[in-house]
């Protein structure tokens, strides 16, 4: 197989980073990204893109840690380079605060982010309703810039990108040798994964350039994440809701909760409301599968179900998916050799 043809379905952070990893690990592959949406209309564009991991109940912690570490290391290098502003990657410091001391004071990622330590009494005075907190410095991937930068890197490798709604992975079998499924929430329909469910997030993106720190309530519901031009205020975790319409009552509630953490937000301007559906699952599905119909086989690599933690682990899962694509290619080359014998 001289030049395996790989189709990556999905152009959010997972699709684009997976496609890029494939071009890096398999330079002879011809990679095509197919998606019905591209930035700025993907779920990734709604997310703040903060590198603060979400914990997947059914993925072993060491694997989540490895994914996060690879992602952090990769982005750290970009943030330190002259491409940082174009890629939308920047360092941000801040606080995660808890109303009552959490059972686990040291999360699995505490040594991967920078300068992680408990907050001092003096720092906690800023949060009178909270008893305990953690201060650290992490990275943020601003979208659209990060997705546009990934698209630019992809184009430079010769990869193609097309707007196309794929209704069934099988429809790709005649044009492509391997299909990579990075469809996020779309996998519910596309591959009928009933373990995948939406967790609806509504956020406000506001103009408040004096806010230089992130603040996150440990309950994960209220957060303030300063981006390059706008601050993302959140949020909601409406499990099972498929609605992409902003709810005005929720907007008011998010704003109030964030103002109680950071009173200066009362002066925020130009409030934009966005909604995204976190493609949630008990564990991220990074897995090989072979579809077959009438003796014809189509190798598929799945990489979806990142829920609230897509940005935090994207590069790590992309690396793993690219590795699985490599295995698919070896298997195809092996079977084509056998076919010749």
């Amino acid at each position: 197989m001289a030049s395996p043809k790989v189709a990556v379905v999905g152009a959010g952070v997972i699709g684009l980073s997976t496609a890029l990893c494939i071009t890096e690990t398999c330079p002879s592959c011809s990679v095509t990204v197919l998606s019905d949406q591209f930035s700025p209309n993907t779920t990734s564009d709604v997310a703040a893109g903060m590198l603060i991991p979400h914990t997947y109940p059914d993925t072993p912690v060491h694997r989540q840690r490895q994914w996060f570490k690879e992602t952090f290391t990769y982005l750290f290098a970009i943030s330190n380079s002259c491409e940082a502003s174009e890629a939308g990657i920047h360092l941000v410091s801040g606080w995660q605060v808890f109303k009552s001391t959490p059972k686990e004071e040291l999360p699995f990622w505490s040594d991967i982010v920078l300068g992680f330590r408990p907050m001092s009494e003096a720092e906690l005075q800023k949060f009178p309703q909270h008893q305990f907190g953690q201060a650290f410095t992490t990275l943020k991937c601003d979208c659209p810039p990060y997705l546009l930068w990934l698209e630019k890197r992809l184009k430079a490798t010769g990869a193609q990108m097309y707007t196309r709604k794929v209704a069934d992975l099988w429809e790709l079998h005649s044009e492509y040798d391997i299909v990579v499924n990075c469809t996020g929430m779309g996998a519910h329909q596309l591959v009928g994964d009933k373990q995948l469910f939406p967790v609806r997030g509504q956020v406000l993106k506001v103009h408040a350039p004096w806010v230089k720190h992130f603040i996150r309530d440990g309950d994960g519901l209220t957060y303030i994440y300063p981006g390059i031009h706008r601050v993302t205020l959140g949020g909601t975790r409406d499990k099972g809701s498929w609605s992409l319409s902003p709810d005005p009552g929720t907007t008011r509630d998010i704003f109030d909760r964030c103002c109680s953490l950071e009173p200066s937000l009362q002066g925020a301007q130009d409030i934009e409301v966005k909604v995204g559906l976190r493609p949630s699952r008990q564990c991220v599905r990074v897995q090989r599968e072979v579809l077959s119909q009438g003796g014809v086989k189509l190798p598929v690599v799945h990489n979806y179900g990142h829920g609230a933690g897509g940005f935090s682990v994207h590069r790590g899962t992309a690396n793993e998916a690219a590795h699985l694509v490599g295995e698919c290619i070896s298997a195809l080359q092996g079977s084509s050799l056998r076919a010749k014998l």
Partner: protein
Amino acid sequence: MRVAVIGAGVIGLSSALCIHEQFHGLVPSLELEVYADHFTPHTTSDGAAGLWQPYLSDHGNLQETLWNKETFDYLLGHLHSPAAKEMGLFLISGYNLFTEPVPDPSWKNIVLGFRNLTPKELQLFPGYSYGWFNTALMLEGRSYLPWLTNRLTQRGVKFFHKKVESFQELFAQGVDVVLNCSGMRAGDLQPDPELQPGRGQVIKVLAPWVKHFIITHDLKSGIYNSPYIIPGSEFTVLGGIYQFGNWSEENSAKDRKSIWDSCCRLLPALQKVKIVGEWSGLRPARPSVRLERESVHLGNLQAEVIHNYGHGGFGITIHWGCAMAAARIFGSILQEKKQLATPPGPRL
């Protein structure tokens, strides 16, 4: 009781406000006036980035450290007030970088979360092997000075746009107490060889992804002669010039290149930014702040000058502590003139 403040930078305006707040209710005849030839946005305070941070060492000058602390605590107390945004006040964290280990600064327990940098953090700054991280405050002069001006105007304080040539000029008009907050030009009112310019130059750029201050230190070349990057609410200030004895307020192409090259080495992504302005100013440098009373005898009358100048590159950092100290001196003057039974506030 007529009080004239000379100077409308951060020192003049804050001293005026502090005195008015404490005494106007107690001294019905108090009339406060501010005289200056430059008002915001044309003062030295307007050009400063506005970062609260004292110099590395207080050289044993505990008084200045206390004034710095007083200022920080005062500002921190206002952080959650509705006025914070209008004042140009917000929290900011960042890095101080060194090429060798240094002792902790006098202000390590004043700021929040002071700690040494970890090896991984130092990877961000090749060439620097030691450093600090802490959370401090920004108080942007371009917002704070108008806010102070508004508070003073509301209180009926009068402003006069004129260059005062001598203290006598004001005493001759019937002023009882002069607050000398004339910063760099104090020498024009009364010679002071200890007051010298510490010339600075900055480049203002749009770099909104930078959320931390980054201040490097070269112990050989001295304070602020090493690149620094300070993100404000609208633009980011690049600097790193401190020229002792240089009175020029013209932007120097050589300094611009030096700032640009050294800041881009520190943060490579700056190479692509848009430059929106440039500014030079003179830090009113002095071995220590001159904050003291001077009695002037005019015939059989005694007039008073309260000097409050020479704050170098830490005017914003120390301003409120000095304003309070100036107010205490004013209280003593009032007591002596029997305008006041006892001065307000704790005796120090």
